[in-house]
């Protein structure tokens, strides 16, 4: 588990360094995600890589454990709401209504586009 966690941290570290060195507007952990994905794909081609954290379900089980409790990780930042209670008291209802309507509209627009586009592209594949 320590080796798997180290591999995950290493991917993030390389990601953060790369983002800063190249001054690109991408979050470092997203680059780390791509690196870990490339490592996992490379393991399929080169079985010699399947050792340590990359062998025997190591990094997989550590990652699944972390993602199973993803909700926990948002709590420290979320508690920051207590600092903004005065502003919420002033504009709170308007802000809540705006955010709620916007989130519903966004969910519907995204899922409708996804479903429409995937059936459109599937039809094109059927009759090229």
């Amino acid at each position: 588990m320590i080796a798997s966690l180290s591999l995950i941290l290493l991917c993030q570290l390389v990601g953060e360094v790369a983002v800063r060195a190249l001054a690109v507007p991408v979050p470092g952990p997203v680059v780390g995600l791509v690196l870990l994905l490339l490592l996992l794909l490379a393991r399929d081609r080169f079985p010699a890589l399947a050792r340590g954290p990359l062998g025997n379900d190591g990094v997989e089980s550590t990652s699944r454990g972390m993602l199973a409790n993803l909700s926990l990780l948002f709590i420290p930042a979320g508690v920051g709401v207590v600092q903004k209670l005065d502003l919420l008291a002033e504009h709170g209802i308007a802000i809540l209504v705006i955010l709620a309507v916007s989130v519903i509209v966004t969910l519907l627009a995204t899922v409708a586009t996804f479903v429409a586009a995937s059936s459109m592209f599937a039809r094109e594949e059927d009759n090229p």
Partner: protein
Amino acid sequence: MSDNPFSLWVYLSQSPLLWLTVTLLTYAVTDAVSLKTRRHPLANPVLHSLWIIGAFLLLTGTSYTTYFAGAQFVHFLLGPATVALAVPLYENRRRVAAAVLPMLVALAVGSLTAIVSVVLLARAFGLPREIILSLAPKSVTAGVAMGISESLHADPSLTAVAVILTGIMGAIIVTPLMNFTGITDFRGRGFAAGIAAHGIGTARAFQVDEVAGVFAGIAMSLNALVTSLLVPLAVTYLLR
């Protein structure tokens, strides 16, 4: 033993141990309740942990800075958890590769809808310009949203609050809303949750269905990129 129970509290309230314990314990309880109710949307563990911990801080007169000194160890794991999304992505790579085109179209439409809808609504409500700018990036993950808000000279801490509220509302509403529309494609349902409600929506998606979680994770990552490009453009056009 300490001769004064107050001095014990002074020690504990300043140490990271107490606030880390409070965070984990509150989450353990709210998550157990969420499991017991078979992941009912209203039993969202983030929502209930926030008000319980928030009330505890207000009652004990503890500052957020003191709380965060302990809770930062949990907060830190957000980065590694983003990297860990590579694993379910790898395991579902064939389904993801087959859906690249619909994902890109839905990303463009969803990202634009998230920004334009909030800016237009906030303007219709007559909110001050600084608040509108702070709300605009609310659908992306907190770190990125705060960066965008800063570059617009808005209020990053208000942005963080808007991001969290958006995430919680999205996570609560997504399942009933999608069931209501009758859409059963968990790729699309998850993707929408990731676009509209970033990591908290993704956490919800993983509770419902693994495929939904994978697509939510991709949506959240892509939306972080697209929104940082779109928000400055959108506010220039919409707030002239």
